[in-house]
């Protein structure tokens, strides 16, 4: 630790100190040149004014305390009134805000009353005035609308979740189904229409209750005319309506078909169809109108009577077909 450093004083500070002390070249030159004097006429006028002021009676106007100035108080009152009115009207126009502001107080009052007089609480807690009755009715309507909205939302969420799960499993298999069964395309409409109706209904009801659905899907027009099969399969993967349609197609008709289709493409064995140890179905299944009796050694086994042409009509690759023995059914290899 060393002592305080002896730093040389800056020139401008020395100059400033000289100036403040009444020294310095600048002050000297200024003083020598600043010799203007107040005009005599001004001097006389001011001195006369000072004498007249002494001759006049003394009127002391004490300054009022700031808080007691009348304009101050009235201005504050007006501002408070305007602001409160604005807030009150805004709260009254917004049911959500109104419920947030008034409902807790009402609930607390009801609870207090119930706690104090349990047997009288239900009757005495009822609103007495017409305004209070209207408020209670509005609150009940708002609650009902809120419940409906919650129900609709949960329904929609459930459907969407089921559809997503189903499409994850059956989307690849949906292409041949859609291609083969044009009537499935007709099923595209109902879920979409239902979805649109649900959305429009919920939004209409919500608007009637001054609510706005934030997370509901907007109502969309009816789906476009069905594109060709391949284009449809792409639409199925991308558009929400298509996803719903594929979900409907995969869930509603023969699940065995879709499962077999899926198995043929992926060769996975996660089939819910009951089979015996050798892979034969306990009851023959239908695959696009053709009788299938089992799955074995990576191949789909058709019933003995199913012709080669019928199979090729559903599955275009002849090299995937094989016939182990004459009396046995044809086999269609998976993943082919």
């Amino acid at each position: 630790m060393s002592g305080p450093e002896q730093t040389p004083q800056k020139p401008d500070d020395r100059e400033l100190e000289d100036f403040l002390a009444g020294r310095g070249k600048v002050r000297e030159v200024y003083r020598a040149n600043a010799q203007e004097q107040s005009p005599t006429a001004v001097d006389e006028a001011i001195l006369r004014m000072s004498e007249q002021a002494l001759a006049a009676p003394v009127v002391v106007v004490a300054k009022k305390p700031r808080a007691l100035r009348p304009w101050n108080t009235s201005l504050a009152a007006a501002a408070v009134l305007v602001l409160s009115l604005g807030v009150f009207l805004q709260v009254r126009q917004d049911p959500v805000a109104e419920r947030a502001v008034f409902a807790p107080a009402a609930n607390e009052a009801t609870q207090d009353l119930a706690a104090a007089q349990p047997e009288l609480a239900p009757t005495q807690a009822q609103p007495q005035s017409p305004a209070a009755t209207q408020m209670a009715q509005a609150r009940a309507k708002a609650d009902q609308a809120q419940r409906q909205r919650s129900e609709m939302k949960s329904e929609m969420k459930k459907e969407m979740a089921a559809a997503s799960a189903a499409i994850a499993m059956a989307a690849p298999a949906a292409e041949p189904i859609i291609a083969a069964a044009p009537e499935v395309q007709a099923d595209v409409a109902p879920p979409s229409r239902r979805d649109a109706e649900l959305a429009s209904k919920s939004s209409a009801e919500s608007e009637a209750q001054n609510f706005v659905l934030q997370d509901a899907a907007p109502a969309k027009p009816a789906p476009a005319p069905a594109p060709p099969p391949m284009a449809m399969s792409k639409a199925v993967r991308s558009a929400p309506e298509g996803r719903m349609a594929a979900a409907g197609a995969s869930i509603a008709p023969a699940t065995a078909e879709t499962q077999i289709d899926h198995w043929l493409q992926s060769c996975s064995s996660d089939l819910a169809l009951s089979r015996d140890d050798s892979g034969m179905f306990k009851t023959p299944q239908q695959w696009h109108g053709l009788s299938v009796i089992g799955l074995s050694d990576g191949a789909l086994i058709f019933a003995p009577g199913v012709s080669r042409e019928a199979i090729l009509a559903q599955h275009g690759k002849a090299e995937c077909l094989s016939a182990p023995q004459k009396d046995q059914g044809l086999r269609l290899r998976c993943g082919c």
Partner: protein
Amino acid sequence: MSVPDDPHTDESLMLRYAAGEASAFATLYARHKDGVWRYLLRGCRNEALAAELSQEVWASVIKVRNIYEPRARFATWLYRLAHNRLVDHWRAERPQEELDVAAEVAAPEHHTPAARATQAEQGSRLMQALDALSIEQREAFLLQAEGGLSLEEIASTQGVGRETVKSRLRYALAKLRGELADVWP
């Protein structure tokens, strides 16, 4: 600030004037009239306007004599009144301020050809340089040079901090010195 014992201080004179002694005001006025006049003249750069502002400042002193309390130096209070008048004037004249500055630079008495002939070249250039300072710097300079106000009193009058006043004065002095660098070593 307590009531001064010396009957000849500014504060005592003001109190005596408030008590009804007209001569006390005359003494007080004689002490400060020229300083206030020059402060206002250099602030507004117009003799007629300076006369008007000067009367307003002293009228304020006369008007409030009965509620005057010597809380601070009389000079500080007086120059604050003058400063407030100047600020009112600047606010009223702001749209034309630049034009006025240009027009009035040549107008003051000490810039006329006759005055130049009699004034030293050095002093004339210093006054020109003073006119060229910013309002704040010129005010700080004049409050000290004419009113003898301290840094704290100038800061209080201008409504800024002490360091700001120091900075303004440093710049003002540096500019004035720089203007006369060829004359002064």
